[in-house]
């Protein structure tokens, strides 16, 4: 039997939800042996992922829902974000060149730098998208 999730929450897809999400993720991560800097980085990455869903999947339309689930699987953390928005083309989600100084588009870079692996896919049989992110628990140099 798998261990219960560290966190399972559902929230409104609006910017005002983000503070509550950050606080819940922070509390969940405090149960692990991560240093404060790593916790802050992961909280930021989750916030960016949620903000992307709000802005680009739901297009700021405020009445959608997002489900977040965090699980520990041996020495890895697995984060899963599920929305019910129209399908988003995974090909649009790419880190940008950080040598260009321009506003916007940093969220994917933050996720990419923080996580060991991530994948976004539209659901085939249902409306919505799933973003799965994995991160090792051990000390990383990334």
């Amino acid at each position, binding site marked *: 039997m798998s261990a219960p999730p560290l966190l399972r929450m559902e929230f409104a897809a609006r*910017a005002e939800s983000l503070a509550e999400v*950050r606080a819940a993720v922070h509390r969940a991560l405090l149960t692990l042996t991560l240093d404060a800097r790593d916790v802050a980085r992961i909280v*930021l990455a989750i916030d960016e992922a949620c*903000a992307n869903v709000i802005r680009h999947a739901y297009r700021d339309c405020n009445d959608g829902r997002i489900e977040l689930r965090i699980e520990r699987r041996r020495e890895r953390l697995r984060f899963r974000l599920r929305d019910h928005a129209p399908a988003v083309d995974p090909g649009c989600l790419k880190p940008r060149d950080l040598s260009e*100084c321009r*506003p*916007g588009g940093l969220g994917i870079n933050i996720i990419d730098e923080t996580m060991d692996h991530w994948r976004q896919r539209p659901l085939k049989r249902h409306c919505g998208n799933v973003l799965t992110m994995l991160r090792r628990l051990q000390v990383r140099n990334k």
Partner: protein
Amino acid sequence: MMGKGSELSRDGDWSVLRVWGEVDLSWSQDVRKQVLDAYTKAKSLAVQLDGVSYIDSSGIAALVEGFQHARAKGGRFALLAPSESVRAVLELARLDRVFPIFSDLAAARAA
């Protein structure tokens, strides 16, 4: 200093925008507007960030716009005393090498 907020003041030929609290998607557009509006008061802008406990990429984007505005209009832009959490995000975005960062306005003026 509770919650989040901002305050604009004038110090000689600089506008100083003091921001505090968590800067995220819920009000980063307001911060962006305040950054750009500040240039109507003075040609140069310093954004004081020691009271910012959290900033996301939308908040960083507001700062980038302020920086670009100053460059385009021949003014100056500076970040003052960014908190540790702000510095961490600037480093992650490699903007710590781009933004002029100073401990206070006097240091920005002298640079």
